[in-house]
C-alpha cells in the first residue's frame, strides 16, 4: 500500500491543466499538410533518408484513405486537416535536468506535478510539450542495466539497430487513416528498450502536453521488452480548453519477446475539444504477456482499440478499459485480440459510463483461426447510463473457428436511477458526489487491479468529471 506522500505526489490536478503560455516557437511547420511539411520536419530533426521516405510514403497512404465514416461517427468530417499545425517546437533538445528546461515549459509540468512524481516513485520520466520532449530522464541504475528510454527522434538516430527492425511492424502505416497520418508527421513519444531479464521495478512515465491552439500532436511510441524482461509504462495527457478543436493522433507499438511482460497504462483527461484518435497494438511472443489498461476520460471524440497479437504459444493479452463519456463527448473504444498461436489466452474487460448526452461505444474484435488449439478468450463489457439521454452501443465481433477453443462473452447495461441518487442524497451526499460514488462503484472491481497510484488518480478524475456534470 502506498503511503500518503506517494498518493499526494501522484495526484495530478487536471483542473489545473486549463492554462496556456504565449507561443514562442523556433520551429513551426505552419498550417496544412504536404510533402514540404514533411521535409520541414525531417530537416529540423536531421533525419536519415529512410525515415524521410517512410514519412512521404505514409502521406500518400493518408491522402488515399477515406475517413472511416462508413462505420465511425461523421464528426470526423469536422476535422479540418488544413487548419492544423503539424510541428511546433522550441528547438531545444530534451534535458536531463529540470533546471535546464525553459521556464514556461518547466512551470507547466510543475503545475501538473510531474517533477514531484518523478522524485517520489517513478523510474524514468519523459515530458513532451507540443511536438518535442522538453525533459527526459531515467534512473542511473536502469541505464547501467542497458535500459533505453528516449524520444522517437533520438531512438531512431542513436539506436537504429534496436528500433528500426520493429518500427512500423506491429502497426503498419496503412493500418488505418490515422496511423498513416501519424507515420507521416510523427514526433516525440517514447522509444524504450529493456534488455533480457531486466525487471524494471518502478513505472516509466511519459506525459504529453498540448500547449498551442490549432495544433496536432502525433507522438510515436515503440516499446521493446526483451526475453524475460518486464516493464510498466504509464502515459498521461492534458491540453487547455481552446476555442477550436485540437488533434491528438498517436501510434503505440509494443513488442514483448519470449517470457516478457509489458503493462501499459493510460489515464487521459483531454479537454472536450480534442479529437483523440490513437492506434495501439502489441505483439506477444511465446509465453509473453501484454496488458493494456486504458482509461479514457474527456476529449470530444476518442477512437481507440488497443490490441494484442498473440504470436507465440501460451502468449497472453489483456485489455482493461474504462471510458467515461460526458455531455457532448463520444468514447468509441474497445479491443482487438488476434490469436495466432496455440494455447493463447486473451481477456477483455470494458466498462463504459455515459452521462447526459454523452455516448459510449464498445467495439471488440476477437479472432481465433481454425488451425489453432486450446485458445481462450473472455470478453465482458458493461455499460452504465446516467440519465435517459445517454446512449451506449456494443459491437462485439468474435470470430472463432474450430472447436478446440473456449470463449465467453458477457455484456450488461445498467442505469443509475433517480431513486438511487435520491437514496444517496438522503444520506447527505450532494448530487455530484452521489453520481461520482455510483460511477466509482461501477468501475471498482477493475480499479482494484490497477497499481495503487493510478487507481487513486482515476478516482480523483472521475470525482472531478462527475462534479462538473451536475448542471
Amino acid at each position: 500500500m502506498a503511503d500518503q506522500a506517494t498518493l499526494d505526489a501522484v495526484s495530478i490536478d487536471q483542473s489545473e491543466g486549463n492554462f496556456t503560455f504565449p507561443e514562442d516557437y523556433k520551429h513551426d511547420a505552419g498550417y496544412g499538410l504536404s510533402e514540404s511539411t514533411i521535409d520541414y520536419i525531417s530537416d529540423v530533426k536531421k533525419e536519415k533518408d529512410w525515415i524521410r521516405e517512410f514519412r512521404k510514403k505514409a502521406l500518400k497512404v493518408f491522402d488515399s484513405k477515406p475517413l472511416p465514416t462508413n462505420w465511425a461517427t461523421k464528426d470526423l468530417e469536422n476535422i479540418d486537416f488544413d487548419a492544423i499545425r503539424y510541428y511546433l517546437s522550441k528547438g531545444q533538445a530534451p534535458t536531463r535536468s529540470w533546471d535546464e528546461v525553459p521556464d514556461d515549459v518547466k512551470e507547466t509540468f510543475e503545475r501538473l506535478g510531474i517533477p514531484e512524481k518523478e522524485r517520489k516513485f517513478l523510474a524514468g520520466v519523459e515530458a513532451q510539450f507540443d511536438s518535442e520532449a522538453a525533459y527526459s530522464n531515467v534512473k542511473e541504475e536502469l541505464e547501467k542495466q542497458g535500459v533505453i528510454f528516449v524520444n522517437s527522434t533520438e531512438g531512431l538516430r542513436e539506436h537504429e539497430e534496436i528500433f528500426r527492425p520493429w518500427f512500423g511492424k506491429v502497426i503498419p502505416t496503412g493500418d488505418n487513416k490515422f496511423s498513416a497520418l501519424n507515420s507521416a508527421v510523427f514526433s516525440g513519444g517514447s522509444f524504450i528498450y529493456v534488455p533480457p531479464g531486466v525487471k524494471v521495478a518502478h513505472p516509466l512515465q511519459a506525459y504529453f502536453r498540448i500547449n498551442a491552439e490549432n495544433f496536432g500532436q502525433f507522438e510515436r511510441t515503440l516499446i521493446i521488452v526483451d526475453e524475460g524482461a518486464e516493464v510498466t509504462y504509464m502515459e498521461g495527457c492534458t491540453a487547455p480548453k481552446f476555442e477550436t478543436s485540437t488533434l491528438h493522433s498517436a501510434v503505440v507499438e509494443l513488442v514483448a519477446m519470449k517470457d516478457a511482460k509489458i503493462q501499459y497504462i493510460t489515464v487521459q483527461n483531454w479537454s472536450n475539444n480534442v479529437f483523440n484518435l490513437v492506434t495501439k497494438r502489441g505483439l506477444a511472443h511465446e509465453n509473453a504477456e501484454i496488458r493494456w489498461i486504458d482509461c479514457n476520460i474527456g476529449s470530444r471524440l476518442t477512437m481507440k482499440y488497443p490490441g494484442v497479437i498473440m504470436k507465440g504459444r501460451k502468449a497472453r493479452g489483456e485489455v482493461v478499459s474504462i471510458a467515461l463519456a460526458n455531455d457532448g463527448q463520444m468514447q468509441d473504444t474497445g479491443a482487438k485480440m488476434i490469436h495466432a498461436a496455440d494455447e493463447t489466452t486473451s481477456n477483455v474487460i470494458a466498462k463504459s459510463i455515459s452521462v447526459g448526452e454523452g455516448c459510449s461505444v464498445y467495439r471488440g474484435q476477437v479472432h481465433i483461426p481454425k488451425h489453432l488449439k486450446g485458445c481462450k478468450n473472455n470478453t465482458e463489457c458493461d455499460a452504465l447510463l446516467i440519465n435517459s439521454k445517454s446512449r451506449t452501443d456494443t459491437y462485439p465481433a468474435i470470430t472463432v473457428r474450430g472447436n478446440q477453443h473456449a470463449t465467453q462473452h458477457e455484456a450488461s447495461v445498467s442505469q443509475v436511477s433517480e431513486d438511487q441518487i435520491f437514496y444517496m442524497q438522503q444520506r447527505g451526499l450532494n448530487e455530484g458526489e452521489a453520481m461520482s460514488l455510483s460511477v466509482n462503484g461501477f468501475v471498482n472491481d477493475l480499479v482494484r487491479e490497477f497499481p495503487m497510484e493510478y487507481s487513486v488518480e482515476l478516482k480523483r478524475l472521475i470525482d472531478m468529471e462527475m462534479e462538473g456534470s451536475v448542471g
Partner: protein
Amino acid sequence: MSNSLRIDNLHANVEGTDQKILKGLNLEVPKGEVHAIMGPNGSGKSTLSKVMAGNEEYEVTEGSIFMDDTNLLDLDIDERSRAGFFLAFQYPHEIPGVSSANFIRAALQARLPKGEEIDAVAYYKSLYEKMDLLGMDRKFTARSVNEGFSGGEKKRNEVLQMLMLDPTYAVLDETDSGLDIDALRIVAEGVNNMRGPDKGFLVITHYQRLLDYIVPDVVHVMADGQIIKSGDKSLALELEEKGYDWVTAELAATA
C-alpha cells in the same frame, strides 16, 4: 427556538400532475418523543416520508415543514440530511460496487468542512460498536450497499446508517416489513438505544407488532392524506383489533 419536527397544513401532488396525495396534513413530533403513524395502504404514509426528505417526484403546493427552526422546504435533499433529518427507507436502494463501510464513510465525510478528513481508526471503532449492537457480521462492511442483502439485512443496514449519522429527527418508513421477530427485536433495540431527550422519531408502520418493541408516545392514524385521529399507544391496539374501517367510520359519524 422551537423543539419539534412540525408539519402544518401540508399539501402535496405527484410532480407535474394534479394528483393530490397529501391534503392538509398536520403533525408535530417534539424532541424526546416517538410517534407512530399507522394507516391503510394508499393513505399517503410513504409519500409523507418522501416529501419530508425532499424527493422531487412530489411537489409541495401548500404548507410547511419545520425541523426546529429550520424550514426543510428551503433545503435540498442532501442539505436536509446534513441538517439532521434521516429517512430509513422502506425499499433501500442497491449501490453496486460501493462497500457499506465506504458509503457510510462518504456520508460522514460530507458532513465535515472541506479539507477535513475522517479519522479512519475512530470511524471503524464506532462502526463496529454499532454493528455489534445490531448483531451484524464484520464481513458486512465489505459488501456492496444492499446488493444481495436479504430484507432483514437491508433494514438493519438502514438502522446502522441511522446510528452512524446520528440525526436529530428520524423517520422510519415501514422498517418492520420483511423482518422476522428476532430481526425486529434487534432493529427496535437499535432505535431504542438512540432514543433520548434530543431526538425525535416518527415510525411509519402497517402493523401494531413493531410498537410492542418501540413503544410510541403518540399514535396517529392517517387516511386519505391527513391525520384523522391521534391517541396514546392503546390506539394502536384498538386499530389492530377493530381494523381501519372503524376509525374512518367513526370519523364519518362525527362529520
